[in-house]
């Protein structure tokens, strides 16, 4: 080896040492830089990152308040909350929606309907990170299987949710209404904070009207979640304040009886307690099972209900607008007496028809040969049309309109009945505006027997009847009887607005009530059959309304056409005459005559209320538990 190479080796070694020293400095500096960076993050900015880390893992969750329960007047539970286990998905957290759904279908039974409903909700606008339920009412087995697979299913959760349940839904659906999932419009309307954890909202009836009271106030909890949003533990909790429990005037026994009485028919029964205006029964038959609507009704189920000829979804008691026919006569009689159009003893000759002028059109009486000489009492008892034709012409439309409106016709006079319609109380102004025609005297003639343009709901008829039972004292119909804890209803129940109907001669009330008693108990009363052998006295008025409309495209077989073209049977009345405890309006669609079909229904209700249920009529919320079981 040449000498020169040894020298060079030493030089190379020195060169390398210099370079290594440079690298050593670089390593020192860069590692110091890393340490400085760590100091910056971990010491200087520690607080910032602690906050970030906590924000990551700790989330504030809203805890929905349990919805208030609803009881009838005897503390029978009408609406409760049941825990239901459902599987929900948070789309923001689900890895692949299609694969996840596919996997879930292997684990659970997921029907076409569930999927369809789920996908519909997926497309609807919603809050971010809101859970969308896929299937309700999971079985224990399915919950266990989900638990096994859940690590592979981010964004999928099993939720125990309190879901509204109506134990007597077929009976109460129309009176109570129901809750359902919050929809797009409601989302705009509700307070986003208070409803942050709530999925359901009152859609109709009591559930809708008292939504605020029933809902309660939202609570919060701080939870620790992982990156996939799975809750690991609850750190802190502020409990929600539950919704108020409500007691209604409704009596489930009477409601059930009303449904029994109308079973197999279509119709409505409204029963009011005249002293309080409380609605004792609000039946529209056929009813339906509102529980199906709570978690979202399936398309075939909905179609079956909505396309049924019997229209079970139609609330006849509140929204069925019928010609009141002869049931309007007591109110018209009051108007005629008070306005001086007739006197108590004045008689007219009824030849079986009425003419405005000799040789003019004949307005016929229901009784072909006529009633002969009749005074007001007879005209009421026998429902003489000609007497009321003449009285109507004598009064004129303005007088009739004025009195009838004070009976609550043409308006929604209810305090807390959601969705009640106001019927139609015709006037010349109305006719000009709507039909561009003047008011003819013939229109007044028709109004005199509650036909023509006049429309009223069963609830309005019952309200007007209760007014007569109260001898002019107004009681607006209402459902709410009490709030748990004996809270005052002020501020929750709207205030009463109607002035009492004062007559120039208050004794006229008694006269008309006696005339209505004649209907039930008189030897020629149209409802004497229904009033026979009663241990109490009742007052009433029958009515028979012509069926005026039938859509041409509706398909019926011949038998059915005959059935559905029959007149509607109506009845209004109250009992006992002296100290009324119940006022009712009954309508049986296509039931034929009011005296034969509707009046016996009312008698059965009177008997039930006054005789059968009399002993347990008025409990308060205090004795909630013991009376629950015995009712029904």
């Amino acid at each position, binding site marked *: 080896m040449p000498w020169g190479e040894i020298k060079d080796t030493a030089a190379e070694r020195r060169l*390398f040492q210099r370079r290594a020293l440079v*690298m050593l400095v670089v390593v020192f500096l860069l*590692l110091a830089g890393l340490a400085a960076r*760590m100091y910056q993050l971990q010491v200087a900015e520690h607080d910032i990152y602690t906050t970030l880390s906590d924000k*990551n*893992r700790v989330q504030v969750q809203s805890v929905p308040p349990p919805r208030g329960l609803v009881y009838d007047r005897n503390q029978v539970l009408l609406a409760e909350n049941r825990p239901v286990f459902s599987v929900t998905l948070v789309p923001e957290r689900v890895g692949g929606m299609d694969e996840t759904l596919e996997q879930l279908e292997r684990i659970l039974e997921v029907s076409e309907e569930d999927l369809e409903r789920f996908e519909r909700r997926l497309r609807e606008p919603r809050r971010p990170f809101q859970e969308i339920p896929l299937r309700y009412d999971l079985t224990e087995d399915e919950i266990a299987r989900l638990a096994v697979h859940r690590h592979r299913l981010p964004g999928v959760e099993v939720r125990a949710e309190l879901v509204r349940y109506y134990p007597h839904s077929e009976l109460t659906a129309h009176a109570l209404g129901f809750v359902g999932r919050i929809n797009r419009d409601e989302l705009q309307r509700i307070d986003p904070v208070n409803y942050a954890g709530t999925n359901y909202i009152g859609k109709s009836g009591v559930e809708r009207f008292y939504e605020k009271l029933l809902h309660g106030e939202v609570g919060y909890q701080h939870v*620790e979640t992982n990156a996939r949003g799975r809750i690991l533990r609850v750190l802190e909790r502020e409990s929600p304040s539950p919704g108020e429990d409500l007691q209604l005037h409704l009596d489930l026994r009477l409601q059930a009886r009303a449904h029994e009485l109308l079973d197999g028919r279509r119709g409505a029964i409204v029963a009011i307690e005249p002293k309080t205006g409380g609605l004792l029964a609000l039946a529209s038959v056929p009813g339906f099972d509102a529980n199906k609507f709570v978690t979202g009704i399936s398309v075939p189920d909905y179609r079956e209900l909505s396309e049924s000829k019997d229209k079970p979804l139609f609330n006849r008691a509140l929204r069925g607008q019928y010609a009141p026919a002869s049931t309007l006569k007591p109110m018209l009689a009051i108007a005629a007496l008070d306005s001086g159009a007739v006197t108590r003893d004045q008689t007219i000759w009824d030849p079986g028809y009425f003419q405005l002028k000799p040789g003019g059109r004949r307005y016929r009486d229901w009784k072909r040969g006529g009633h002969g000489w009749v005074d007001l009492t007879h005209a009421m008892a026998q429902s003489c049309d000609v007497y009321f034709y003449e009285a109507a012409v004598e009064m004129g439309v303005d007088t009739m309109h004025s009195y009838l409106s004070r009976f609550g016709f043409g308006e929604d006079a209810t305090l807390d009945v959601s969705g009640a319609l106001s019927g139609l109380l015709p006037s010349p102004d109305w006719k000009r505006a709507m039909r561009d025609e003047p008011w003819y005297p013939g229109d007044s003639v028709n109004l005199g027997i509650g036909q023509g343009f006049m429309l009223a709901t069963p609830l309005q008829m019952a309200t007007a009847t209760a007014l007569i039972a109260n001898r002019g004292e107004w009681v607006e119909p209402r459902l709410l009887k009490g709030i748990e804890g004996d809270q005052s209803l002020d501020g929750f129940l709207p205030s009463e607005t109607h002035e009492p109907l004062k007559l120039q001669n208050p004794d006229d009330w008694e006269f008309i009530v006696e005339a209505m008693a004649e209907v039930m108990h008189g030897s020629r009363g149209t409802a004497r059959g229904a009033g026979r052998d009663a241990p109490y006295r009742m007052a009433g008025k029958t009515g028979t309304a012509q069926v005026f409309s039938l859509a041409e495209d509706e398909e019926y077989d011949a038998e059915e056409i005959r059935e559905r073209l029959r007149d509607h049977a109506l009845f209004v009345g109250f009992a006992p005459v002296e100290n009324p405890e119940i006022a009712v309006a009954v309508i049986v669609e296509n039931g034929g005559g009011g005296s034969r079909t509707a009046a016996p229904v009312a008698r059965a209700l009177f008997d039930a209320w006054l005789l059968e249920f009399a002993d347990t009529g008025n409990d308060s919320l205090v004795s909630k538990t013991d009376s629950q079981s015995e009712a029904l």
Partner: protein
Amino acid sequence: MSVREVYTSTASNPLGRPRGFWSALHLDPVLLILLTALIIGGLFVLYSGADRNFDVVKAQAIRFGIAFVVMLVFAQLDPSVFRRWAPWLYAAGLAGLVAVLLVGVGAKGAQRWLALPGLPRFQPSELMKLVVPMMAAWYLSRHFLPPRLPRIGMSLIVVLLPMALIAVQPDLGTALLVGMAGLFVVFFAGMSWRLISAFAVMISVAAPVLWFFGMRDYQKQRVLTLLDPQSDPLGAGWNIIQSKTAIGSGGFEGKGWLQGTQSHLEFLPESHTDFIVAVLAEEFGFIGMLVLLSIYLLIILRCLFIAVVAQDSFSRLIAGALTMTFFIYVFVNIGMVSGLLPVVGVPLPLISYGGTSTVTLMAAFGILMSVHTHRRMISA
């Protein structure tokens, strides 16, 4: 007694001289203790980073066992063996890289693996982390140092060719490490500072060109994300935000072993692989990080020392380059996790979960030990 032996005996540092038992095993006890401390500490962090999955720790321990055997084997070989084999290994490595591009298998849009029948799957690019500096060291040490310009040019080609082949796989992280390993050889060989400055200027000019023509969209995205993680907090910026949050929330003392919320609640991605240092920082705090950086520093110091006292140029160059490559691992990984550097796939050496890089790293330490323990002794 040859001239060479006289030289070595005078120059050798008594502290660095292996003796007795360790000498017979060709192991360096200082390096071995440091590595063992790092690996055992790392397994504890891994247990936490893998969310208490003991199987992961077990698998990693087995890998370390294999890697340790590889290190042992490499340590037994004389440095001259590496020198003689360097050109052949280099040629084989290049062939492997070309084969990967043609018939390689891979995932996530990158072809990195070569599956030859009868052999386990392996990444030629991983092998090149050792072979490229070996080749460069072989090439440069054959002549006087410092090398002249043409030699430097040639050696740069030797380095950049495999680097380019790896970069197009694409595997930016490995390309970077392979390139750096080779360039460190050139640097240690004595490339003049003037040339280095000239190259630095050239690179800063070429960077925009690389940006517009050379980088893939996802790579650009990583750089942009580094500059402004908040621009895409749920996407590409997520990793950086979460790892910085993990590190920062650890504070001075840390949240305690297994108590890290960022990692255990799954906010931190890749918490047992590339981002494992964030787990350590979260659970052991600033103190833990100082300990980690100190161990790395001590390892690097020991290795540089081994390089400095090595007996011939090839040994010095390869030892110096492998040491600095190890440092680059550390710096790039921690820099990336703490948000100083863009996200590139570089594991934290000897702590991150993963097989191939562990074996390569331990092989590199085997070479270093070989350099240190195969010394020409004074025979008389």
